């Protein structure tokens, strides 16, 4: 919860005059340090490990683990804004579409995490990957 409060506060009072010259990260850093860990929080919150000893669910076991999922979902949602600032999105029509899809997936993940719905999180995790791959296929080699 503490992380969420800090994030909400930061985003609420985020300077509105963010300009191209105020970018603090290049795209690689933004992906590596913001979106990748956030996505991993979603992907690692559901699924199964199956061995000869049995089947083990990866669902969060306590509030702290659920908090990580909520935090990841919120970061994904709000990252759509960071990806959409003019210096990153100008003349990139599809980029904006992908950012919008990311925002939608993040919102769905947050809702599923609030409801502790691991089956929904599993499906949303697949959707999240599809958005990532679709965007990478268009823009990764730029």
């Amino acid at each position, binding site marked *: 919860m503490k992380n969420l409060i800090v994030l909400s506060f930061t985003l609420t009072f985020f300077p509105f005059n963010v300009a191209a010259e105020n970018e603090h990260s290049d795209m690689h850093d933004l992906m590596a340090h913001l979106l*990748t860990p956030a*996505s*991993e929080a*979603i*992907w*690692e919150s*559901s*699924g*199964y*490990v*199956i*061995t*000869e000893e049995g*089947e083990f669910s*990866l669902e969060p076991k306590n509030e702290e683990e659920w908090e990580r999922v909520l935090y990841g979902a919120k970061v994904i949602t709000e990252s759509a804004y960071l990806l959409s600032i003019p210096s990153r999105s100008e003349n990139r029509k599809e980029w904006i579409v992908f950012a919008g899809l990311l925002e939608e997936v993040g919102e769905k993940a947050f809702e599923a995490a609030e409801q502790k719905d691991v089956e929904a999180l*599993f*499906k949303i*995790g*697949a959707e*999240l*990957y599809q958005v*990532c*791959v679709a965007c*990478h*296929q268009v823009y*990764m080699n730029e």
Partner: protein
Amino acid sequence: MRKILSLVVVLTLFSLSHTIYGHHAFTAEFDANAPINITGKVVKVEWINPHAWVHVEVQDESKATIWMVEGGTPNTLIRNGLNKNSIKPGTVINVRGYQSKGKLCLPRCIANGRDITFPDGSKVFMGSSGTGAPRDGADPKER
């Protein structure tokens, strides 16, 4: 001290194997010029996003080697006819695919899987097309 250093190296590589191989383009991590064709016993299945992983124990004359074979997303595999109960631990399968660019096999070998052949002879495409993987005919839906 030497043992501790070895342990640190192994643990670092192990954590990297999970970090690096989490989500990526085929060409970033796998070697299209290093095809593999392995047969062994399934010891673990990770039915997770963004990629399912099948761990196969391959026995040769001197030792057993664990291969971590990456598949597509669980959803992709379901569409291809595989579910989390299809690949039971203990089953002997044949896997064709491509080895990772890193070939040290520490702590285990890593590969991108193309198809699995089950003991009854049935074959299922387990990869993801369109991620830069070679067009090798493994995906029956690939045009």
